[in-house]
């Protein structure tokens, strides 16, 4: 009871602070500063129709590299803890509906993910959503089976290959254009066509493979954490 009341008091104080602070952020009518610069020059400089992908991959590519490292640390910690302290699993046989769905549906959903990654510079989507959609495909396969085939080493190999290729593509920019993750040296192409945007589709593929393999590795560790029952 004391805890509930104390928590309520703290939350009410913070709510008063929020009610005082948030109205100070007045409604803007025009783009300002960095946002204006990205919107006005983004399509010409990067060749990407999707400005959000241009910001993630090209302008703030270094931040995205750091973010991928954070994701790697989190998933490695999950897998490591489940390997060191095994919990044990017992999965039952799936019902017929689930088993049938797990046979039919993975291919179309995987196609969705590949579409989001490949069209990251043209339409909404990109490496992160595409990667999570592909990871949910693997999850569907795991739901439809009582045991997961344990092919060691393939998932971590894809993961490290994707991370490595992200870094190498960045260094390619240093070699040719003197700038980390410069994406204009490949030629930006015509915005709106599938071969455009310079380095953006390649890096999107790397990010998508990285995210997909990491989440699949987490779910595989959930499913295969050994130990007794």
């Amino acid at each position, binding site marked *: 009871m004391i805890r509930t009341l104390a928590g309520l008091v703290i939350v009410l104080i913070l709510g008063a602070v929020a009610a005082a602070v948030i109205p100070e952020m007045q409604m803007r009518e025009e783009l300002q500063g960095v946002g204006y610069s990205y919107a006005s020059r983004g399509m010409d400089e990067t060749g990407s129709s*999707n400005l959000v992908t241009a910001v993630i991959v090209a302008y703030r590519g270094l931040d995205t590299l750091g973010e991928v490292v954070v994701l790697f640390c989190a998933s490695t910690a999950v897998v490591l803890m489940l390997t060191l302290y095994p919990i044990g699993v017992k999965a039952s046989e799936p019902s017929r509906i689930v088993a049938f769905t797990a046979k039919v549906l993975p291919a179309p959903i995987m196609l969705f993910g590949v579409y*989001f990654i490949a069209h990251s510079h043209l339409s909404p*989507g990109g490496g*992160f959503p595409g990667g999570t959609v592909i990871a*949910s495909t693997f999850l569907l396969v795991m739901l439809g089976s009582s045991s997961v085939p344990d092919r060691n080493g393939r998932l971590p190999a894809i993961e490290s290959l994707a991370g490595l290729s992200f870094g190498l593509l960045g260094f390619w920019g240093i070699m040719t254009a003197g700038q980390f993750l410069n994406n204009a040296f490949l030629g930006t192409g015509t915005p709106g066509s599938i071969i455009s945007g310079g380095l953006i589709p390649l890096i999107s593929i790397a990010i998508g493979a990285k995210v997909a393999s990491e*989440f699949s590795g987490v779910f595989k560790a959930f499913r295969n954490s050994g130990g007794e029952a």
Partner: protein
Amino acid sequence: MTETLMTAIVLTLGGMMVAAGIAVLFVRDLLSAIIITGFVSLSASVMFLLMDAPDVAITEASIGAVLATMIFLWGRGKIGDDG
């Protein structure tokens, strides 16, 4: 006209989201709390689309509908409802 409709949609969705957020804390069954969290994150996806952020809406839909739900379901299977 369109703006009136959009405002009505946002008010409905926002009220439902906050009510569902409170229900997550007070509902007795943990499985129900997980399902209601899924509802919060799916409505957040609609709200992201209303704010003209389709990329964020796609990400939130795929994460909130499948991955987060699955992680919490796994955790509940290991711990149970007690406490």
